[in-house]
């Protein structure tokens, strides 16, 4: 698992690569904790290279979202595989997250 953080069009884009599960979740959270400590206002998380998410991974993403909301930050998830998107649908987490098809969609409409 790796997280690459880039600045794009005044936004922060995080590229997660690998699996988001019970073993990798603490490392992923650490990367986001730094951004949250800086009160990063808008984060786009690109999940194109994420092949697997378990309930710990979902819980970690919920935790990141909650922490960002505490200071008025906003988080968007993009490029989810059909299967991972279905997990957000089954768990109804799609109601909690802003999920968009592509990074370009998320960036161009992130006002």
């Amino acid at each position: 698992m790796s997280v690459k953080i880039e600045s794009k069009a005044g936004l922060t884009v995080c590229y997660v690569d690998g699996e988001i599960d019970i073993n990798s979740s603490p490392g992923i959270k650490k990367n986001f904790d730094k951004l949250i400590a800086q009160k990063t206002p808008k984060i786009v998380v690109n999940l194109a290279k994420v092949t697997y998410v378990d309930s710990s991974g979902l819980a970690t993403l919920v935790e990141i979202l909650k922490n960002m909301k505490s200071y008025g930050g906003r988080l968007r998830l993009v490029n989810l595989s059909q299967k991972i998107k279905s997990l957000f649908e089954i768990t109804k987490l799609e109601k909690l997250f802003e999920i968009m098809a592509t990074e370009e969609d998320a960036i161009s409409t992130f006002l």
Partner: protein
Amino acid sequence: MIKSELSGSLKSLRDSVKKISLIVPSGVEQIRKVSSNILDALASYDIDDDGLFDIKLCVEEAVRNAIVHGNKSNRKLSVRTVYWVDGEALNIEIEDEGAGFNYKALRDPTKEENLLRNSGRGVYLIERLMDKVEFNDKGNKVKMTKFLGPKKI
């Protein structure tokens, strides 16, 4: 039917329900070992990527629950997994040595007031992604069934 044919068909019947048992200590690093063992054993079945994802996820959720919630991560306690294919049905039993839990009292994680919670989605995902899920009365053993396609020819 001549004798050799009969013994051949009995053998294949016996093979199809051969149970494989795995016993692991209660450490989260064991979770992937269990799911990989099961997925490797299914290589001769024609299961699509979504089906394999579901099996991996449900096994890992159940083993994780057994290790963390059931056995409270006490490495002296084990998690036992038994799996077998009966016809086209993959059966997986996962049992811990803990006190069990009341699975009937689980919160619905999809309710508005529970969406922000950090836990409670594992069993729900298992129930949604497997074809059949049963707990024993004590609540320390789960049996999951997933219907597979036919074996590859």
